């Protein structure tokens, strides 16, 4: 068993203490140091060589975003950022993911400390272990590669026809998803004859900012899904955090049923709901820890044999286990590197219509 060395960066002594305790209790994790701001963190990364860093965003002297940029430039390693639940907090989180953070966690809120500490204790060790398996080299390579992301446009002003979509593209992503999805969404064509449904593991609040961000980057009209949304061509609907998104009788339904694979929204739940619809489905499973999506894709393929299954090439996924689980479980129609994913999905959709 490999021991994962962790550096905890936070300006609050209380948070440093809470996180350090959680790490100390886990027998596969070792706390190598704590740091009180970005500058301190950079020094300790050099001297202590941690495997994973957890880092607050709002800090004095050198804040989390600046520190992150310097870490990624000098000495790329998996960083998990902690951020507040507020709107500005979720925007800086998305920026952090853009700059190379592997994953993020909402900070315990002062309203219900006890409860949120318990939640942190449940999820933090898993996130650290997942982060340790991240292919961080991909982030560093990515920074040098020419970005194919087209210039951002203002939120949707294009008039989209309200044509019923003949094909549903059901996308699932987890850790590493936000950044990979930006590449995927910005390269999809505006005239894609399909509606896109996305379940990305993300807490509530973040999915709203994230859908707005994707909307400015993507030729599709992207929004956070609400109950009753219909399935129109050229639209993309994102499952809100803390809700499963399903399709019933041709429209979107949201429910807060039990978590599946420890998550809500769950990709499996979304895919199961597509078994009896009339439209054809293209399933796309991208980067992420665990195996959410594999069961659902298998069940969907079994009841709707004309379903097309696409995996992001695990070699291009920040965390490869979700696409790997899919490839093991279902015969895939395409296994595609991230840069080619949008093109291949759009080709397959057009073959179906």
């Amino acid at each position, binding site marked *: 068993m490999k021991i994962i060395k962790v550096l905890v960066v936070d300006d609050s002594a209380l948070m440093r203490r809470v996180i350090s305790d959680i790490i100390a209790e886990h027998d596969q994790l070792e706390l190598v140091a704590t740091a009180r701001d970005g500058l301190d963190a950079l020094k300790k990364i050099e001297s202590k060589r941690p495997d994973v860093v957890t880092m607050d965003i709002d800090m004095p002297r050198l804040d989390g975003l600046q520190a992150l940029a310097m870490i990624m430039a000098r000495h790329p390693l998996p960083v998990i950022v902690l951020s507040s639940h507020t709107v500005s907090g979720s925007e800086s989180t998305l920026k952090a993911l853009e700059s190379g953070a592997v994953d993020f966690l909402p900070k315990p809120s002062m309203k219900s400390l006890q409860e949120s500490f318990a939640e942190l204790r449940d999820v933090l060790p898993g996130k650290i272990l997942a982060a340790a398996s991240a292919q961080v080299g991909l982030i560093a390579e990515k920074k040098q590669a020419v970005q194919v992301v087209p210039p951002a446009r203002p939120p949707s002003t294009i008039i989209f026809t309200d044509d019923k979509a003949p094909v549903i593209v059901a996308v699932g992503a987890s850790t590493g998803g936000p950044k990979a999805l930006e590449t995927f969404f910005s390269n999809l064509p505006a005239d894609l004859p399909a509606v896109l449904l996305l379940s990305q593991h993300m807490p509530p609040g973040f999915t709203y900012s994230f859908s707005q961000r994707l909307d400015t980057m993507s030729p599709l009209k992207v929004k956070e899904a609400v109950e009753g949304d219909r399935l129109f061509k050229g639209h993309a609907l994102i499952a809100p955090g803390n809700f499963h998104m399903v399709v019933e009788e041709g429209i979107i339904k949201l429910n807060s049923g039990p978590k599946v694979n420890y998550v809500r929204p769950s990709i499996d739940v979304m895919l199961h709901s597509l078994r009896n619809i009339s439209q054809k489905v293209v399933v796309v499973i991208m980067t992420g820890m665990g195996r959410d999506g594999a069961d659902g894709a298998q069940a969907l393929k079994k009841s709707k044999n004309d379903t097309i299954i696409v995996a992001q090439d695990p070699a291009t996924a920040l965390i490869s286990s979700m696409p790997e689980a899919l490839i093991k479980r279902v015969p895939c129609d*395409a296994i595609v590197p991230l840069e080619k994913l949008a093109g291949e999905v759009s080709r397959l959709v057009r073959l179906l219509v």
Partner: protein
Amino acid sequence: MQGNWDFAKFKKEFYSFTGLDLESYKDKQMERRINQLITREGYGDLASFFRALKGSNDVLHKFYNYLTINTSSFYRDAKIYDYIEQKALVNLLRNHERLTIWSVGCSHGEEPYTLALILDKHKALHRVKILASDIDDKALEMAREGRYVKNQLEKVPPEILSTAFTEKNNAYYIDARYKKVIDFNKKNFLDPIYSNMPSLQMALCRNVFIYFKTEVQEWIIDHVSRLIVPGGYFIIGSAEFINKPERFKLERQIPSVYLKQP
């Protein structure tokens, strides 16, 4: 300056420039063919012909066309096509709603059209897209036209011959619905074309290796096989052989037919 190259010298220089191994041809025959070309096109001697090849892609491609002797026929190699029809395509159609197949080195189109005929027999023509490529412009032109003579069609089952082709003045024209599922495109498989190719359920790379030395062959096998999804098929010519196919995640099923592993 290097006026009197002998053929061995030409072969060596040509090989280090292109990776194309002329060794696989019978020397006398090849030398005669090249000398004929040099005389016809007025290049003078082997050394100046080589400089012309090096200096112009156009001349090089013309020479490739000249080297490639395209002789092929429909349903060439019955054993391989039996396996493709009865096993490979049955499996693929069960697992995939749409098939994307690449015929690498498609010559006059005999191979992609044969696949289309088989898929049509299984009522699955609308579920396939066949990408067919060759380096030879003339061959591609003929493939797009879909016009064949009787002896190329000897192995086509009679019931298919009568429904899929129209006879006119001793020539046989393949029906337009087969052309619709095939994209013919000029491609040189030594060029970096692979990153623009889609995921494949099957690739056929038959009789294109004979010109290349082992490293080049394996480079092509490596690149093509990466495009094939697990459970998909890689087909080579009946006289060809892949050494240690597990290096490419391929498992031999019968001679010339390999299954891609996860």
